[in-house]
């Protein structure tokens, strides 16, 4: 009897330490911050901290700017990665092998190093402008550097997210069986029909996972927007870090944090639901 009860407790004992970390350092702080941002100075329920955020022009600008940058990055990211992943899935050539190797490289580059690399490459008189100048000095006069501009954030976010997005999409595409496509070809389906009727629906989950995780990562990022983006407007990540450390206003930073949580929570729930439905479907 004793042996049985310790046995049934054993798994709980084993999983307790990491579970404590997840609940103590994710759910608890997030919930606590959420409740605190809804509490007024007198301790009663109040929206005053959100009103303060909404009445501050730079905060609102920052929120809108973050949305714009995130969406444009995601559009660019999928425009590059989806065709690339499709090509990698259906080609066994040497070109495909090398394209995949190169596409995965940023995975091994630390975030701060990629920011530095992109600055040195894209800034005025950087390597890119130098190469263009060597090809045609006239053309180089029209060079538009994305450094310290919104485009810089978009390029940097895309650069960092390519490997993960390609991997996830490729994993999704691998689940599309070649036999399925061949039999569709046999009955005379066109390339477009195969793409829209078979491949796209079957890779929806992978695309959703890639969308969600990239959205959260780009929406809340700091390194790339801080180093590659303009001084104004700032993204929420940069604003939050400034508010917390430079202006030493942890409460205002907390409000900004909870607002990013609220935005990302919707996307995060979609992610968790997508993965969990996939797993229970598999078991």
């Amino acid at each position: 009897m004793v042996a049985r009860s310790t046995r049934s407790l054993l798994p709980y004992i084993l999983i307790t330490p990491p579970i404590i970390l997840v609940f103590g350092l994710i759910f608890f702080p997030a919930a606590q911050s959420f409740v605190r941002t809804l509490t007024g100075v007198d301790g009663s329920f109040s929206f005053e901290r959100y009103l303060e955020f909404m009445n501050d022009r730079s905060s609102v600008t920052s929120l809108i700017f973050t949305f714009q940058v995130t969406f444009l990055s995601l559009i660019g990211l999928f425009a590059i990665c989806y065709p690339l992943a499709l090509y990698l899935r259906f080609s066994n050539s040497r070109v495909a092998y090398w394209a995949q190797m190169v596409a995965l490289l940023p995975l091994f580059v630390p975030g701060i190093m990629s920011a530095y690399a992109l600055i040195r490459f894209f800034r005025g008189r950087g390597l890119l402008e130098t190469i263009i100048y060597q090809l045609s000095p006239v053309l180089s006069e029209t060079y538009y550097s994305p450094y310290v501009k919104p485009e810089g954030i978009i390029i940097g976010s895309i650069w960092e997210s390519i490997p993960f997005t390609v991997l996830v999409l490729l994993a999704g595409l691998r689940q599309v069986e070649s036999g399925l496509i061949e039999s569709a070809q046999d009955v005379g389906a066109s390339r477009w029909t195969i793409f829209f009727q078979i491949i796209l629906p079957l890779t929806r989950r992978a695309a959703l996972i890639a969308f969600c995780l990239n959205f959260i990562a780009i929406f809340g990022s700091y390194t790339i927007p801080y180093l590659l983006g303009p001084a104004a407007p700032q993204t929420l990540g940069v604003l939050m870090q400034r508010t917390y450390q430079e202006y030493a206003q942890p409460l205002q930073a907390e409000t900004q944090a909870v607002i990013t949580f609220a935005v990302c929570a919707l996307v995060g729930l979609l992610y968790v639901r997508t993965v969990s439905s996939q797993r229970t479907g598999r078991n």
Partner: protein
Amino acid sequence: MTTLTLSMRDRLKRYAAREGFGLFALIFLIIFIVLPILTVLLWGFAIRWRFPAVIPTEWGFDFWQETLSRADLRRAFPNSIVLSISVTLLSMVICLPASYAFARMNFRGKQFFLLSFLFTNAFPRLGLYVAIAIIFFRLGLVGTFAGVVIVQLLNTLLLMIWIPTAAFQGVERSLEEAALDVGASRLRVFMQITLPLVFPAVFAAVLLTFVNTFYETYGALLIGAPNVLTIPVIMFPLINNQPIPQYGAILSLVLFAPSVVLLLFANRLLRGGYLTAGFGV
């Protein structure tokens, strides 16, 4: 003769039609991804490099000594190493038994608890660390080594639980049972059958955890600074508005060193599908 050249041209055309997109993609990726990385490498060994020279006009190691003897790096380097090792070891101690439980034992709420680790990805990091910092401030953990270890540990959970869990699930039970039948002890079965089979996956998880922690920036920035500085954190001022580009380049290369090890195993990591398994794909 003409038929031969025609067929050659035909073949070339067919090759271009088939690989046209691939070649275009490869060239784009080389310009977009490889050239920026190459720029860092060139700056790391450049003494003089002015526009419009495509490569540095003067090469040398002069800036290495200058950079490596900087006081901030001398403080940050040991911090980064000790932090990454402690976080990786702690993560193994906490997560590996848990992943064994998730893979091998049946208990209530198993799916729920396993999925709860996904939430480490569902929150924007910086925002979460602001919320954590407010709690840590009251606990006196802001600016301490322990504080940074705890936040960085949070980052490792998903990888260190999901990858080994999948590996433990993949071990054929019949192999272990056969060994038990012929009289091997449970410990011996675990050491000689289970462990060797899960070793590649666990090794991948450990390697990824170490490298990720070495690069971790936001936790170290918000919780550690200004007392506990790591290499990524001291790089911000060296990249922003720094008139000497070599500092940033050399520190980037120092930071990149563990990645070279990871790159050596890259093929195996990818083939095992470990990288995406850590995200629930």
